[in-house]
Each structure stands twice: as C-alpha cells, then as structure tokens.
C-alpha cells in the first residue's frame, strides 16, 4: 500500500503546472531528509533518520475555487503514505461575497496580540483538525467567518471571527474561540481588538475574557505613532503600554498573566540616514512588585562591514541577562565574537565563516564558559545549494558529546 502511495506521489511530482480556461494547476514537491549520528566508542552510531516527501497539489479559479491536497510519504522508524493536509474552498464572488469549504489539518487558529499572540500556533494539534468553514463579507469592508472543527481527544472547536480592517477611522476584530471536551468540560475565549487612527496617535486595545467566568478577563493597550522626533536623520517613537488581567484568566500563549497589573513603555530609536537602531523598554508591576522588567539594546551595521549588537535585560531588578556581539562580514569571510551573560553564568563565543562560492557556505562556532568547568561547545556547519535543493552537514559537540547531522531539503522542480 505504501509502495502504491509512493508511486502515485512520484507520478504527481512529475506532472507539469498547467492552466486551462481560468483554472490554474500546480504541484510543489518538497523533499526533506535528515539523519542524526552520535559518536559511541569512536565510531558513529545512527540515532535517527527520516525521509519526508510531500507534494502540494493546487487547483484554483480566481475568487471561486481553491483546492489544496498534500499527499505525503514518510519513512522514519516505519514507512507510511498518507494525506497530510487538504482543503476545498468555494466562493461566490461579488458584493457581498460568500463562501465555504471543508478542510483537514488546515486553518489552524491563530490570533495576534500586542507582542505575544493571544492564541498562538500549537494551541491545537493541527494534524488532527478536521472541519468546515463559512465566510462572507464585502459590505463596508466587513468580513465574517465561522469555523467548526474536531480536534484531538474528541474536543470540538468553534471559532467565530468578525472584522472590519479599515473603517476610515480605525479597525476592529471580534473573535470567539470555544472548545468543548467529551464531558461537560468547555473553554471559551472572546477577543476584541480595536485600533483607532487619530491625527497624533493610534491607540490599540485588546480585550479578552470568558463571559461565563467573572474574573477571567484581560486588557492590553498600547498607544502607537507617538513620534517624539522625526526628521531626515532620526525617528524616536514612544509607546506607552498597559496590561491588566483578572485572577482566573488563563491564556496558554502567555499574552497576559493571571492577576497582572502592569504599566510601562517602549522608546524606540531608528536612524533614517544610517543603519542604527536602539530601544529602551521598562515596565512596572504595581500589584506584586516581583515582575518589573527593564531592557535596553542597540544594533548597528558599521562602515567597516561589522554587525554590532548589544542588549541587557533585567527582570525583577535581580535576574540579569545580556549579550554583546560583533560580527565582521564580507562576501567571502565572516568572523566575530560575543559575550553572553545569563543570571549566574556567562559564556564567551566566537564564529568564523567562509564562502568559497555563492552557493557554498561553511561556518565554525565555538563557545565556552570562563567559569570552573569551561563547558566547551561548538559546531561546524557546511551548507551547499544547487538550484532549489539545499544540503547541510553539521558536526556539533557539547563537552565529550559529539553529534553529526546531515540534511537535505528542497523543492524538486
């Protein structure tokens, strides 16, 4: 069966992209192969190996039909040929427009936040997501969609989304995520995002909550576009921010913490004339003064082809971490070093790279801790590319532990 699947997959890969009467067809074959070895008693021992071949088959008619199927063949500890991902969306174009479709392992829920997403990738097990989706829009820029899917462990997921990306004075989005388990267990998260465009500033607001639970709420706000200075040389932007949450709010993404009461700001500097940028972040937690944080950083690319970066983070005014790095880069050579501070430890590292040709690059990285045990680590990586296929070989060592990794990845066309 797997042999039949693999043969069919290879036949699909050999197919040429085509188009007929408004339809367009394409096949994108992607190969990814990896092997990992460790040195045991001076000889290499194969730890893991995998070959993954998938072919994205696309058929579409603009604004009407969108079809994707991704059959795949995978060989690691066992061999299997299976349908990895699929979707079929049909639309009735016009004003208003409407559409709908069915999907397998697709349409993974995601909701952006201020700097941390409200609903992040990996919240759902996308491999086991099966469902259907309806969408409509076109009136005054409004778009709405309703998605129902079943997840792993028989959970069901319903996502409602209404948004108006541009209303002349700003935009808003209303999202609702409901998960229901096999018993009475259910979970609900409503998200409102609002964004107003005022002449001098743009307030952004995200309100989250579970209406069924009183203290499960949260608010994050930022005021953007407050430019303290902007001329042909420099742009200085101040972003005040606030974050508050109820005691029983639970967000897996970490966009808000239960009981959070935080206020702070970001000061960002960009040179418009030179390759230079810097930032200063600070926030104060006024409910428990345990979560104050402070961060400062600077990046520049100098006239001597050097990338200089430095940053320092202070959490709770105790835990300090930071990094300073200087990397000299030219067309063929690369060399540099860095110093990293991590709470009670610090590491010093160096890097050298060489590119004998446009499509070949070798890089050596070494680091160690100047404290008692030195803790040496390093890796040598060689990358070569031919058209859209890339090969990689990496030897890494961490103390006495030596690993070898070989990989091949590319689009086969």
């Amino acid at each position, binding site marked *: 069966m797997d042999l039949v699947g693999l043969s069919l997959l290879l036949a699909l890969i050999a197919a040429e992209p085509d188009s007929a009467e408004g339809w367009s067809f394409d096949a994108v074959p992607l190969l990814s192969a990896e092997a990992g070895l460790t040195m045991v008693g001076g000889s290499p021992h194969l730890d893991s190996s995998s070959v993954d071949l998938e072919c994205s088959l696309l058929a579409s008619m603009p604004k009407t039909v969108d079809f994707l199927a991704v059959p795949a063949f995978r060989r690691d500890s066992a061999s299997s040929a299976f349908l990895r991902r699929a979707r079929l969306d049909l639309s009735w174009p016009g004003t208003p427009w409407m559409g709908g479709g069915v999907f397998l392992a697709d349409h*993974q829920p995601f909701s952006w936040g201020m700097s941390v997403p409200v609903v992040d990738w990996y919240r759902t097990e996308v491999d086991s997501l099966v469902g259907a989706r309806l969408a409509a829009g076109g009136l005054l820029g409004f778009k709405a969609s309703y998605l129902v899917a079943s997840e792993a462990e028989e959970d069901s997921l319903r996502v409602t989304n209404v948004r108006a990306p541009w209303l002349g004075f700003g935009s808003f989005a209303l999202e609702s995520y409901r998960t229901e388990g096999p018993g009475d267990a259910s979970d609900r998260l409503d998200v409102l995002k609002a964004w107003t465009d005022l002449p001098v500033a743009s307030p952004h607001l995200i309100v989250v909550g579970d209406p069924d639970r009183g203290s499960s709420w949260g608010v994050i706000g930022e005021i953007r576009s407050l430019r303290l200075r902007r001329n042909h040389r420099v742009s200085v932007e101040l972003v005040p921010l606030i974050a508050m949450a109820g005691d029983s709010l639970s967000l897996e993404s970490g966009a808000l913490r239960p009981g959070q009461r935080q206020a702070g700001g970001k000061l960002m500097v960009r040179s418009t004339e030179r390759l230079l940028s810097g930032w200063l972040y600070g926030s104060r937690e006024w409910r428990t003064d345990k979560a104050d944080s402070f961060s400062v950083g600077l990046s520049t690319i100098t006239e001597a082809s050097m990338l200089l970066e430095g940053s320092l983070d202070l959490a709770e005014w105790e835990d300090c971490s930071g990094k300073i790095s200087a990397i000299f880069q030219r067309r063929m050579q690369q060399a540099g070093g860095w110093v990293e501070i991590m709470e009670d430890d610090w590491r010093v590292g160096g890097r050298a790279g060489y590119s004998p040709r446009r499509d070949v690059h070798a890089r050596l990285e070494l680091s160690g801790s100047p404290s008692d045990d030195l803790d040496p680590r390093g890796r040598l990586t060689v990358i070569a*590319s031919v058209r859209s296929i890339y090969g990689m070989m990496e030897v890494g060592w961490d103390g006495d532990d030596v690993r070898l990794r070989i990989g091949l990845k*590319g*689009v086969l066309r």
Partner: protein
Amino acid sequence: MRRLTFFALLLMLGCTMLTPAERPPSPEGFSFWCPGACKVQVIGDWNHWGGLVDAGGTVNPEVGRMEPVGDGNWILQVELPRGRYRYGFLVDGVELVADPMNPERARFGDWVVSLLVVE
C-alpha cells in the same frame, strides 16, 4: 609624539569601525544585510513560519525567499494587511535571527524574533 600618533591612529580606526554605515535606498518591504549567505528567507506569522507550524512541520525553502541585490543586501516585498506579525530571517535554512534594524522584539518558541506592526 609617538604615543599621540598611536592614539590618533587608534581613534581613527575606532571611528571607522564603529561609524554606522549609510542606509541604502531600499524599497518598501523587508531588507537584511547578510553577505556570504547561500540563501535568506523571511518567515513569520503571515506565512505560517514558512510551513513550520503547519501539518508536517517542514519549512519550505522557497517560501519568503529573499533576493540578493548586491553588497550583501537581501530584499523582499510583501504586502500584509493591518495587524502585528512576528518574523525572523532564516539564514541558509539553519539560523533564525531577528531583524537588527527593527527595535521591536518578540519571541517565537525559544527564538528572539522581530515584531512588525502594519498600520
């Protein structure tokens, strides 16, 4: 006198080494300075991190592929709707780095990446 000459030379060298380079005229979109790389991709929330967060979890080496435009600069124009997007530059398919010219940082898994606010 010799000390003064040495100091002046050191100062000149330091100024040359540390003077930020002029920003090249770049079109709208992403730009990244990385001479010597075989390929650079810009991957982020809008393109599902090149396929990393999709079923299968494999980054497609063609997604978000940037074009070399000389002097070690890579560019890519992407039109994105209003919103906030985390992104990073994937160098040679093995190293994900933040945009050094963007002061807004975010986290994606264990990586420090950049944040783009499309207004």
